[in-house]
């Protein structure tokens, strides 16, 4: 591996790992929430895994996801 590539990896690795840590914290929190809701009888076990959006909900999800990715790309392009 050449030196410039090493430098790029060294620069971005802590950022990626920090984001990965935060993502894991959120995954752990969502899982805890699901389990507590199931224990308290608010949510059936596995209900979120099996959830299927309606066409209307899917259209809203697609719209939101487009915006999410577009914002990410705008950041990549420095806008």
């Amino acid at each position, binding site marked *: 591996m050449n030196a410039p590539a090493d430098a790029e990896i060294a620069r971005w690795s802590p950022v990626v790992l920090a984001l990965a840590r935060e993502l894991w914290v959120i995954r752990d929190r969502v899982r805890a929430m699901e389990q507590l809701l199931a224990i308290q009888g608010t949510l059936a076990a596995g209900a979120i895994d099996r959830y299927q959006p309606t066409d209307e909900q*899917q259209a809203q999800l697609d719209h939101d996801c487009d915006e999410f990715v577009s914002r990410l790309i705008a950041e990549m392009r420095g806008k």
Partner: protein
Amino acid sequence: MEIALRQRGRASVDFLSALGRVTSREKQAVSRELQGRGFALHEPAETIGDRSARFARAVAATPSFDSFRALREWSAERHGPIAMEAFDEVRTEFAPALDRLRVGPTTLEATLGDQVPDYYRGVAFHRTATWDGHDYMGVVHGEIVHRRMVGRNFGGDIYQQRRSALQELLHTSYGDILELGTSSGNFTVALSEQFPDARITGVDLSRRMLEQAQRLGNERGASWRLFQRAAESTGFPDQSFDLVAAYSLGHEVPETCMRQILTEALRILRPGGEFLMGDVIPYAAQDPLTQCWADFDAQTGGEPYWREFCQLDLARVAREQGFATARYDFARGPRRFPYVLHAVKADTAVGHVGS
């Protein structure tokens, strides 16, 4: 069979679909920047390869290219594994029903094993994986990649194109139909719906894709006969079919194989029989910018035979191979897709088949 994905797989597929839409917009941005810089779409005496290389250098220098490439490369690399992972999350739930659909009036003879042609062996078409890269690859490709990822960004029923290709045919019924490159069976469905009384046979090199076609056939109570065989070497007797049809097969095989396919079709067609193939649009029918992008996408997107296929004049090739008449043009309808080859074998009984 509708495969209801778990939340993780479903949201991941949604994310990839969004990437596809945003990537298209990024591509348009690159095109605008390219045109703003005065990129010359024509240079004298330039080959497709030279132009493609010049185009690749020019797009790489545009401000939007890095983000476009990042999106495209990640999608190309990850869509296959993500689709397989999404299926694996629901495998235990759906596998029994999928396996039951292998039993029924549609039969499958898969005896080719590893005896596949070199042009097919180990090629990761579309960078997804090989056509047999997962034990339920027909479901993964047909139901998740094609229907949920590609189809969602296609503005309607992606399989409608297959039905529009059939409008070129001369007759309203056929006795024996052979489909070449059956894949996961969606063109077979179109043939079956259009010609419900026909005896339908299908061949493909991928056992996993044929297994999914078999499920679609049994789901409909259809009696298709499916064989794991090469389209250029079907093994069927001379003059045993009235119609030989294919969809999206030509650009997946080398030019030499495409010529062999036409020769084979001519051999197994009865006098007056028809050959119909719907596929991607040849370069000669595209505007220069679309052509540059199509070649760029093919060269970087796991389409090893696309360029040679898109340079063929298939009407001329079909006549060279011995068909009496051949027409190669856009499918009828507002979408102008796919491009369709319709060729007719001479009817020796009457001496000539009109166009």
